């Protein structure tokens, strides 16, 4: 599904990612762990096409297409989803209106008619309930005044609504209390399938206790320095990144 080859990425002329190569197959869950400033979020934003991240060399194939030639919106429509570490606030636009628009833009891309108001409301209720999101949150402006936990839940809700096949979760666990972490993880686990892959970026083991990864990669100074299975995450949790 995803094949990153010898990727180098700079931000404001400072190289962050160095010769990164990573393959993610269909249905696989990869966890990327690493200390602050190691470049984990840079990978997430590079994959999503953030214009502030400059790819200086390398290649990324996504479902046999050249991801680097695609606009961020094209990447999303092709099935890539980034759950932001710091979801953006959008004052003046209600969450319900925003969610309906993102659903419809994907429906249009798939050749479907815009969703009916009643059908959307039913879907929104059902998916919000899985995440313990109260419906009145959707009448508020997007992420404006939301707590850290509400913002993260709103990201997972969008993931559920858009049905992507590659999900990048950038520190979704930060800002979540124990209950929210559990309900969010349960919602993510329900979305796991043989056709959907995950890249989970996190500092800590606790998220990976709920969402079991197939592979764990340790990131330092812009490169993967070690890969393994979940036992590697346990080792980091016990010994830290300086093991």
């Amino acid at each position, binding site marked *: 599904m995803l094949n990153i080859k010898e990727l180098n990425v700079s931000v404001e002329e400072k190289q962050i990612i160095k010769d990164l190569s990573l393959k993610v197959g269909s249905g696989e869950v990869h966890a990327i762990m690493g200390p602050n400033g190691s470049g984990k979020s840079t990978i997430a934003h590079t994959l*999503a*096409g*953030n*214009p*502030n991240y400059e790819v200086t060399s390398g290649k990324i194939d996504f479902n046999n297409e050249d991801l680097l030639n695609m*606009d*961020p*919106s094209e*990447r*999303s*429509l092709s099935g890539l989803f*980034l759950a*932001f570490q710091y*979801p*953006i606030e*959008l*004052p*003046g*636009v209600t969450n319900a209106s*925003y969610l309906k*628009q*993102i659903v419809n*833009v*994907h429906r249009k*891309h798939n050749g479907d008619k815009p969703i009916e108001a009643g059908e959307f409301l039913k879907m929104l209720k059902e998916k919000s309930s899985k995440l313990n999101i109260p419906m009145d949150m959707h009448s508020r*402006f*997007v992420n404006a005044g939301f707590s850290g936990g509400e913002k993260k839940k709103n990201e997972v809700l*969008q993931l559920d609504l*858009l049905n992507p096949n590659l999900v990048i979760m950038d520190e979704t666990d930060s800002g979540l209390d124990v209950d929210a972490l559990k309900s969010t993880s349960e919602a993510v686990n329900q979305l796991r399938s043989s056709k959907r892959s995950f890249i989970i970026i996190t500092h800590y083991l606790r998220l990976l206790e709920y969402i079991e990864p197939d592979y764990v990669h340790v990131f330092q100074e812009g490169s993967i320095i070690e890969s393994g299975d979940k036992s590697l995450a346990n080792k980091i949790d016990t010994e830290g990144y300086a093991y």
Partner: protein
Amino acid sequence: MTGSKTNNCSIIFSEKIDIKNAPDNLDIDLQLINDQITGYINVTKSKIDTIINITNLRKKHFNLNLNIYLDEDSFLGLRDESEYNFGSNIIIKSKMNKNSIFEYFRLNSFLKTTKNHFIHDIETSSNCEFRDFNFSNGSDEMHNKTSVSLNDENASYVGSGVMISNSTNSNNDLLIKHLSKSAKSDCSFKTVSRGVSRVSFSGKVFVDQDCSKTVSNQISKGLIMDETANINLTPKLDINNDDVICSHGAASGKPDESIIFYLKSRGIPHKQAEKIYVEGFLGEFLNKISNSEMQQKAMKYISTHC
């Protein structure tokens, strides 16, 4: 609005002046002489709120000189959703007696090549409430000047201005005079400026020395969509009493690229992302419009023009 029922009437300006369904509590005298419309509207107390819908269908420059008088405990809603295709020169003087409410909506489209001038002076008494909402797209020459005198205790003003400018110009001046204690004012101005637009907003709040317990908020924000567009926001405070709560803020700049990226990362194409962003920026204060019908119309205006 004060009650649940309303009397809706209309004034249509064309080659003549057509007044329809005026209720008993409304005294209207308007004269059309040499292309100049002059007259008055007097509103007296009624159990039913009075709403006047103004429509300008004149095929030439629109000149209006109007005096509005609200009696004690009266309500007037004035709504103008006209297209001004030949320019306009409107001067209104309003006097509000105690406990009256005046709600003025302007959702107008102006032809770019026209000249438009609007002056409104409002005098309020105790416990009056003046609500002023103006949505405009500007023109080659446009001046909006509103002066509100909060003369007696507990008078209040709430107003929002939205200017969506696409290579048009507009100068907007607002003066709010707190001349008695415990008066409140709340003003927000937002503009989106494209092309070679020039938009200015000057909002002055004056608080006289005897005006304790004044509460005044003013915010103005501008979004510059092109390098050639220009926005000038000038908040001014002249406060002569220490026992007040006054705030003001002004900010203008380019669109926040992180918001555009967030929207694009959800599959929304660039142009649509920009439109959603601008609509949100302009619609942020629409919750100040308590009338849901007019709030919907304001949202539609923004969506159509931005």
